[in-house]
């Protein structure tokens, strides 16, 4: 049993749930926030709050600095060429909507094809259905191999000369498997399509280098990487963003406004209408600092150790079925989807809750994936840096009680 030191930075994790020390295993839904992030948000509102980009006074300059310095930090974090390629949004969902409305509706025509994977979160799926419907385009899916990874054959077959957009998640939020984005961008670019990557489950957990994967767009949410809710990131290649019309219009995204006409601001302001979430940016900045202090090598090591420790024990429980468990490719992050024999995931989650263990139950915003796998719903445990082997022990212990509570054993 090993405890790790990072848990000390997360006061919420020393609290109790149903009278038992909390074991938080719902990190794919949202992570907890370290003290430094909470302090950064308080520090902004307590000491630097003003409307950025506007006032010619010191406080507003401070707020502007916090906001714009975070943009520079994010650009470096994912190795973008310039901070002009970083647009702040509310979350990954809003970023995907921005791409769909501003790029999708202007580049997809009747008969064109949009290619998704069956493992997409609804956020990277529903919006493309909308675009396809609006433009009379065809929606195609890349399906999975038996081991849960994207089918290589499908990648080759489904992306064709008609494909305009390929939308793919880098890590499935259910199966936890890392997709080879480089392979997809290479194929997509060879037919002239752009690639939209959902980095919600990858950016917090593995090193994502935008130049290495060569994605045209990448989105992620702050709250899944230690930052507060309400701040997210859209990365887009500068030439693409430059050519796109604004998504939302209004204050702060303009150059000149006259009675009948408006000219728009340059990147990135063009896509950030209205007063932005500067407190969220302050939190995101502190979150990136925290992650970089630990380093992705260490983050991946911790998650991998927990994953293997958990999988080994789960596989010994005869009443547990695990999904997307690939040992051949070694490309699984700390996400485990499973079911308890004859028990609905919602009941599992309630019983685990009574033991102080927080997991997710349901379809995890991935109904098409569940249907494809022939499942109604699953349980999901997902790890982050502050989890330890003792958390896994508590999970296993609680799972051993589930069938007894329902009088099945």
């Amino acid at each position, binding site marked *: 049993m090993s405890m790790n030191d990072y848990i000390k930075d997360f006061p919420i994790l020393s609290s109790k749930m149903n009278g038992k020390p909390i074991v938080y295993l719902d990190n794919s839904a949202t992570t907890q926030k370290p003290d430094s992030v909470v302090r950064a948000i308080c520090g902004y509102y307590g000491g630097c709050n003003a409307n950025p980009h506007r006032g010619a006074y010191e406080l507003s300059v401070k707020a502007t600095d916090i906001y714009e310095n975070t943009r520079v930090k994010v650009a470096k974090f994912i190795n973008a060429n310039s901070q002009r390629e970083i647009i702040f949004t509310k979350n990954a969902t809003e970023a995907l909507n921005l791409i769909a409305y501003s790029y999708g509706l202007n580049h997809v025509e009747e008969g064109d094809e949009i290619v998704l994977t069956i493992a997409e979160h609804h956020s990277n799926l529903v919006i493309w259905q909308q675009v396809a419907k609006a433009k009379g385009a065809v929606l195609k899916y890349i399906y999975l191999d038996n081991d849960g990874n994207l089918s290589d054959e499908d990648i080759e077959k489904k992306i064709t000369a008609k494909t305009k957009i390929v939308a793919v998640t880098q890590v499935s939020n259910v199966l936890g498997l890392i997709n080879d984005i480089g392979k997809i961008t290479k194929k997509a670019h060879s037919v002239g399509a752009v690639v939209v990557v959902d980095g919600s489950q990858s950016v917090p957990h593995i090193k994502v280098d935008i130049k290495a994967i060569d994605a045209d767009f990448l989105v992620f949410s702050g709250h899944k990487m230690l930052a507060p809710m309400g701040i997210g990131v859209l990365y887009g290649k500068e030439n693409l963003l430059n050519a796109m019309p604004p998504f939302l219009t209004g204050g702060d995204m303009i150059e000149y406004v006259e009675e009948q006409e408006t000219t728009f601001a340059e990147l990135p302001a063009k896509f950030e209408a209205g007063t932005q979430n500067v407190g969220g940016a302050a939190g995101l900045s502190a979150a990136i600092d925290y992650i970089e202090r630990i380093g992705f090598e260490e983050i991946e090591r911790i998650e991998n150790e927990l994953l293997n420790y958990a999988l080994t024990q789960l596989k010994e429980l005869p009443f547990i079925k695990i999904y997307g468990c690939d040992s051949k490719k070694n490309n699984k992050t700390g996400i485990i989807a499973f079911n308890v024999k004859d028990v*609905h995931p*919602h009941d599992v989650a309630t019983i685990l809750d009574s033991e102080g263990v927080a997991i997710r139950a349901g379809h995890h915003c991935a109904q098409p994936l569940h249907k494809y796998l022939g499942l109604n719903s699953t349980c999901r445990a997902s790890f982050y840096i502050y989890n330890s082997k003792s958390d896994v022990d508590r999970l296993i212990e609680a799972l051993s009680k589930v069938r007894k509570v*329902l009088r099945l054993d």
Partner: protein
Amino acid sequence: MVLDDIYTELIAEHSRNAEHKHHLQNPTFIERGHNPSCGDEIVLELEVADGKIKNASFTGVGCAISQASTDMMIELLKDKTVDDAKRLADLFLAMIKGEVTDDSELEDLEDSTALQNIANMPARVKCATLAWHTFLNSIDKNDNGS
């Protein structure tokens, strides 16, 4: 939270061996109920004639609470008049909201009172009420249609 107050023998039994989980020969109304957040799904079949629920059944997938609640509801509503069934539905929903707690008032709900403790579990309220909302929807729709 005391799990045994929720997963009682009665609820475990109704969810494991739901007596009314099958199709009807001649349903008058078929109504789908769905909790999108957790994936509970039921299809309620009612045979209604002369203002009376002659028969009822359900199919679907869901957690122990939603399945047991549906099975117990059907047990209770069979052979009741539609008006009485609606009254019981309102009583059940009031119980789950914690608005009616008096045992003698709740007595008409028979086995379904086993779900009273769900009132203390906001995360599971939807599971317990799915069947009853589906029943009310079905009746309302067909009332308006006639």
